[in-house]
Structure formats: C-alpha cells, structure tokens
C-alpha cells in the first residue's frame, strides 16, 4: 500500500505526476527517446498514489491515465488497493456511503476496460465502456462522458515553411459540453494555455499583438515541456470569436516570419485549430475540438511527436473540459484594461444568458408537460419557482460581472 496526502500540486509537479503515471506503465518511453536527462521510471504504486493525491488534477485525467496504464499490462500483477484508492479520490464529495466500497464496485469494470480488445493505448471505445459501466458510481458529466482523445494515427500531407509537402501526424481530441461556446473563450485563447496545462511553459509574444474586430493576431514563441525536453516553436496565432459567440477558435501555424530566427525548432509542421462551437444534433450543444498537425524535422533523433498526444495535447483538452483546474488567479483581473473589461462583461452576460436558457429548459418542458397532460398537475408552481431560481442565480452572476467591470473602471481611473 502506498499513501500520499491529498494536496494541491504546483504546475511543474503536476506535470511530473502526470508524466510519471505514463512512464510507470510505459518504461520504453524513458529508454526510446534519447532524453537529454533520461527520466527514472517510477513505481506504479507510487505514481498512482501521487496521481490520486493531487487535488487539482481533473478526474478525467486520473481515470484515463489509470485505464491507459492498466492496458499496458505490467509485471508483478496489479495493485488493486492503489487503483481503488485512486478511484475513491475522484468520487463526488457528497456521495452517501463508504467511498472506498463504492470505488471497489468499479473494480470489475476497470478490469474489463483494461482487458478490452483493441490497441494497448486507451482508445475512445475503451473509455466509452468505462463510462457506461461506472456512470452510476461516478456520475460523469457530459464532457467526461463524451471525451475522445487521441486519434493520432492518421498521416496527412502538409507543407513545411520551405514549401515541401510532408506526411504529418494528425492529432484530434474533442468533447461535448452543455456550456455555450463562450464559456470556453478563456481556454481557447492560446495566450492562456500555459495557465491551463502544465505542459505549456510559456507563450511569449514575438511582436505586437494586433486586435481585430473579432479577436487578435500575433506571433508567439510557444514553449512546451515534455519530460526533460523543452521545445520552442514560433507560431502565428489568430484568435477569433463569431459575433453571436456561436464559435470561438484559435488557429495556429508555424510563423514563417520568425521561423528562421529559431534554428533549433524541431518541427517543421505545427498547425491546427482549437475551437468551441455550437453544433446542432450532437450529444450536447457545444463541441470543443482540438486538431494539430505535426511533423518532426530532426531526423537524427526519435520522433517526439509520437508522444504529443499523451504528453500535452490530450492534457490541454482534459484541463479545458474541466475549466482549467489550476484556475486563473484573481489578481490577474485587477489590472485588466478597459477594453478587455468591456469584452469580459459582454462575454459574461452573454454566457450567463445562454446558460440561463439552457438551465430553464428542463423546468419549462416539465411545466409544459403538466399543462398538456391528461390530468391537472398542481406541481407547475414548482417549475415556475425553478425557473425563477435559475433566473435569480443568473442575474446574481451577471451582477457580479457588472461589479467586476466597475472595479476595472475604477482601477483604470486610479
């Protein structure tokens, strides 16, 4: 048995915990990629204990890493106690009954998902099997149920900055959400990725960031960390929001303007889109999707884009799905310029309005049902009260938004 105290972990340690949860089950990653500082392969029990104890690692990450790890198989059999402890750490706080015994109930489903046919790496069908089998225990949210990552087996032609067309790895991750696209605006904005995922070190502007009518354009040096490697790529980034906020997206390409100034860049294709958009007919109103095309140009060493999905890209999406568990420090809002504050207010009010409509819908549908049903049902008053409650809550949130806006104006005035 391995114990670890539940706690918030800072970004670097968080990354290390997630990496260890992969390395513990895939020791070949440590040996196959000629790292500048080869990583130690941790013991699986310790890796799982650390993963379970980190309070700011989303449940989605914990479950997915656990199943993915178990699918690799490992010598010496499974430490079911550590698995149950990890799962118990992800149960909701207000669940009745013994948390450990609830987690134990998921054991057979865990075994099934780990042994399900298919690739050894966790695939969408394995995740679906897990979610369907344990939803009564964990009560998964829409974004958790619909999460799909990563499909990175497809190779498609993409041009490099010097015009050569090369087969590039296509990585896709996506999930669906009940929230409107505007709710993901902060996370879709590439400038915030370092605060969202610990794999991102920085997004440093290489020149002026030019505001456009619907977003901004700019060149940035994106730096990511994977195990002991630091990879920097100059990116051209366009961030856009459709007027009705039905789509929010970031497009990124290798910056041709700055590519020559970064001779150490190890990829010559790094392009794609991160978006949140309203898509009718899906399992939820909003699809959040990230696509990335990568090509490794350094033929003298193993292709690290093999690892891009597990070490970073899926994590960014998992964090986005959970609203970026690391959070955005309140202090950042204090110095918000007036333009940005106006944008934030509009965004907040619109998001609240759209969310309010979504929240009212079930009450409204029940209310309609009571009046159109075969017999009179006095419960309609509860539905009206329910809608009133949603409205009051949303107005409260909007009032908070207005107050933040007023604070920003005051700060700008000081």
């Amino acid at each position, binding site marked *: 048995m391995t114990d670890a105290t539940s706690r918030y972990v800072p970004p670097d340690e968080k990354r290390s915990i997630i990496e260890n949860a992969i390395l513990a089950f895939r020791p070949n990653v440590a040996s196959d990629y000629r790292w500048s500082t080869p990583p130690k392969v941790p013991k699986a029990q310790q890796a799982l204990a650390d993963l379970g104890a980190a309070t700011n690692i989303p449940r989605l990450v914990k479950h997915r890493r656990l199943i993915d790890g178990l699918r690799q198989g490992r010598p010496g059999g499974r430490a079911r106690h550590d698995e149950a402890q990890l799962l118990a750490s992800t149960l909701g706080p207000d669940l009745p009954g013994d948390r450990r015994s609830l987690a134990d109930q998921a054991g057979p489903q865990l075994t099934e998902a780990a042994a399900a046919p298919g690739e050894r790496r966790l695939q969408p069908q394995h995740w679906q099997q897990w979610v369907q089998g344990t939803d009564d225990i964990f009560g998964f949210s829409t974004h958790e149920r619909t999460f799909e990552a990563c499909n990175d087996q497809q190779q*498609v*032609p*993409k*041009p*490099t*900055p010097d*015009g050569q*067309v090369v087969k*590039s790895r*296509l990585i896709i991750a996506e999930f669906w959400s009940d929230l*409107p696209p505007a709710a993901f605006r902060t996370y879709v904005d590439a400038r915030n990725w370092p605060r969202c995922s610990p794999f991102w070190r920085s997004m440093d502007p290489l020149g002026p960031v030019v505001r456009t009518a619907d977003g901004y*354009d700019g060149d940035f040096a994106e730096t990511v960390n994977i195990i002991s490697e630091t990879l920097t790529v100059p990116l*051209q980034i*366009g961030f*856009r929001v*459709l007027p*009705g*906020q*039905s*789509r929010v*997206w970031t*497009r*990124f*390409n*290798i910056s*041709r303007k700055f590519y020559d100034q970064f001779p150490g860049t190890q990829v010559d*294709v*790094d*392009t*794609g*889109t991160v978006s949140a*958009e*309203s*898509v*009718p*007919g899906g399992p939820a*109103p909003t699809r959040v*999707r990230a*696509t990335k*095309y990568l090509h490794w140009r350094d033929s003298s060493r193993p292709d690290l884009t093999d690892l891009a999905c597990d070490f970073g890209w899926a994590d960014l999406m998992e964090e986005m799905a959970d609203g970026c568990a690391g959070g955005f420090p309140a202090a950042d809002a204090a110095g918000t310029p007036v333009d940005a504050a106006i944008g934030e207010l509009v965004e907040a009010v*619109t998001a609240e309005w*759209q969310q309010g*409509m979504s929240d*009212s*819908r079930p009450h*409204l549908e029940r*209310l*309609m049902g009571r*009046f*159109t049903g075969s017999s*009179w049902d006095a419960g309609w008053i509860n539905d009206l009260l329910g809608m009133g409650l949603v409205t009051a809550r949303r107005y409260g949130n909007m009032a908070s938004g207005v107050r933040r806006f007023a604070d920003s104006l005051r700060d700008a005035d000081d």
Partner: protein
Amino acid sequence: MAENDLVRLRPIHVAKVWGTALGQLIDLWRTSLTALMELGSGEQPIPGDQSNQISVPLVDGWIPRLTARNVVGETFHQRLDGRAVVFKERARDSRSVTVECSINEAFRPSRGGTYIQGDTYTGQVVNERGTVVATLRLDAGS
C-alpha cells in the same frame, strides 16, 4: 355574468382559462427562447477536416463536373482559387457518386501570398450548371 353563473363555474373551468392563458404565454416565451438560441448558433455541422465527402447524383450515368468557388479561410480570410480543391471519386451506385474533396497542399496561390496559409477554408461546390451541390469546410496549409 350573473352571480349564479359564477357559482356554476367549477375549478376545472378556472384552471382551463388560466391554463390557456398561461399556455399562450409559455408558447410565446418558448418561441422567443428558441429564436434567441437559433440566433446564437452559427450552425457549422462540418468539422473542418483535411477532407470532406459529398454525395451527388450522377448525370446520365456520368459524374458531374464539380468545381469549388468562394473558397475563403475562416481565420485569416485568404481567398483560394477554386482550382486548389481536388475531387476524387470514392464510391458510386446506380444513381449517385460519393466524392472526396480536399485542398491540394502543393497548390501555390497566385494572389494573397505564395503559399496556402494554414486555416479552415469554407466554400461551395458547384456542378457544371453552376448549381451549388454542397458546402465544403476543409483544413489546409500550415
């Protein structure tokens, strides 16, 4: 209405009157909510992948001549010549043909830059009569 008439009114009648009024109000509210929700949803059901598949009817047993037009990048607004879009037959039955369309990544635009800027490109697919038979949404460039 006389007082006696009032006495004859039963709770069910009152409920019906109020129910109808309330129902109309709810209809009005629901309609406005739906309208607002539709207003806020720019429907984009095509994911914007590297290729799209479309199905078009055969013309006298032949594949119609398809071309792309109004191909524009969603983010950076680069316009692409429709000739950048290539069509490949993927399947056919007696009445229709399934065609895969994608953007030729080696295509060199003659205007707006010498390379295809990485973006999601939207446009229309038209047949030889100029009729729009599908919309496309394709990732291209880097």
